[in-house]
């Protein structure tokens, strides 16, 4: 909570120091996602998939500190529901503060951004409740009118109400975007996360977890989200993801990205895959 307070103060001070009043950049997104293995389990008999529906809004302010350094601060809110497992219904609120340096002028000048974000989440199943701190460093480079790349490093720490949601990890990612036309954009990326991953296991009968894996489980807690005899725990692991996204523009300020993302989580003694297919409507006001 100290960090949340510090970030709130920083955002408030940044707001108070602003020389004038400019409207924030407001954006929103509505997303429907099909999530394979939403139960995040290595055990075949316990895997299940589900749809989730999310609605989010975001406001961000910008101020120039020096000729090429800008401060950006903002707040976001997101609501998500999962009709199949309503314990995953959640509301997220986040505050963030970033410094952005664009070295030079024009669309081809490299832009570097350092961002910290603090978010709080509340779930219908309150064991998932918690706060999340993320720090992100990124380098965005446009190479020509069509090609753009983003390379980023991130750190995440999650503190949950249940012990199984206390975890942290760090990662590296790279994404390339190609504008097929002024309207259609294709992007693809890869990411590797190192640290801890949340896993679930059903211990209620056939298909239950193998005993040898218990030694690698940390903070195992019974979680009612998916039914009886389900346990959540963390493992030391790395997670490799790749994604592909096709995004048609609907006018100048909105788009309809279709995204596929697959993640392979590999821990000691167990591993699993998750797959996401999502369709969003993104609108910048």
């Amino acid at each position, binding site marked *: 909570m100290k960090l949340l307070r510090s970030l709130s103060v920083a955002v408030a001070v940044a707001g108070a120091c602003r020389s*004038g*009043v*400019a*409207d924030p*950049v407001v*954006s929103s997104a509505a997303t429907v996602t099909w999530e394979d293995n939403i139960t995040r389990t290595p055990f075949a008999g316990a895997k299940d998939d589900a749809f989730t529906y999310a609605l989010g809004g*975001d406001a*961000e302010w*910008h*101020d*120039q500190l020096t*000729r090429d350094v*800008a401060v950006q601060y903002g707040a976001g809110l997101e609501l998500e529901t999962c009709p199949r497992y309503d314990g995953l219904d959640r509301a997220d609120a986040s505050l963030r503060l970033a410094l952005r340096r*664009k070295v030079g*002028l*024009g*669309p081809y*000048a490299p832009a570097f951004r350092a961002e910290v974000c603090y978010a709080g989440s509340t779930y219908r199943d309150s064991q998932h409740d918690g706060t999340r701190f993320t720090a992100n460093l990124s380098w*965005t480079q*446009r190479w020509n*009118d*069509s090609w753009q790349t*983003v390379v980023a490093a991130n750190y995440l720490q999650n503190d949950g109400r249940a012990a199984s949601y206390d975890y942290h990890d760090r990662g590296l990612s790279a*994404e390339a*975007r190609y*504008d097929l036309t*002024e*309207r259609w*954009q294709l*992007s693809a990326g890869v990411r590797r996360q190192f640290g801890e991953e949340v896993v679930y296991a059903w211990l209620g009968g056939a298909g239950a977890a193998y005993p040898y894996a218990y030694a690698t489980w940390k903070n195992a807690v019974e979680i009612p989200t998916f039914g009886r005899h389900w346990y959540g725990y963390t493992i030391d692991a790395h997670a490799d993801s790749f994604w592909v*996204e096709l*995004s048609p*523009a*609907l*006018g*100048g*300020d*909105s*788009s309809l*990205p279709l*995204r596929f993302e697959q993640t392979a989580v590999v821990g000691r003694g167990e591993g699993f895959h998750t797959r996401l297919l999502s369709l*969003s409507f*993104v*609108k*910048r006001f």
Partner: protein
Amino acid sequence: MPARILAVAALVFGLAAHAEELVKVVVRTTLDGKPVADAVVSATPLDRPAPPPVNPAPAQIEQKDQEFRPYVTAIQVGTTVNFPNHDTVQHHVYSLSKPKRFEIPLYQSGASQAVVFDNPGVVTIGCNIHDWMVAYIVVLPTPYYAMTDATGAAALPPLPAGRYRLEVWHPRAPSPLGQEITSDPTKQAVLEFSVALKPDKRIRRAPSGRTNDY
């Protein structure tokens, strides 16, 4: 590029009462003959220096809906251009073009900045925050210029007798089109140009999926 000029037609409408020739230029696309708007047509005297600007009225390029308006502006050397921000967000206007390099760091809605353009040439304007924003200022060494309208037509100011270099510039033309003309005060002329336009490829404005590009 005289090769690109499909037809040059000087139509005699009869003796004019002017001591200056009225020249109208029509610009169309090579591919399908559609009219080309926003082309800058200029006539630069070859026999004598162009008349200097006499207190030219300031031009204006506003930022509205996160675009520059107008897209193309033609001015004579020495003209001041105002850049009012009529958006609710800030803009950072700049140009890296040789005829005029300048930068107006982030400024707010309602504010306006002025820049004097004192060298001839084409100046590309951008916003350092919103990369899709682009506009062109064509700074001309002559007072004889006009821009084509939606019908592709532009009427030059009356030209005194003499030889001129006539040029047509458009942001999507690979290079300016030009030819030498001789102004005859007894005539009115209609000149027709055909231009092969490049695709209108601009940096995408729409937001990407999960990242804040702003």
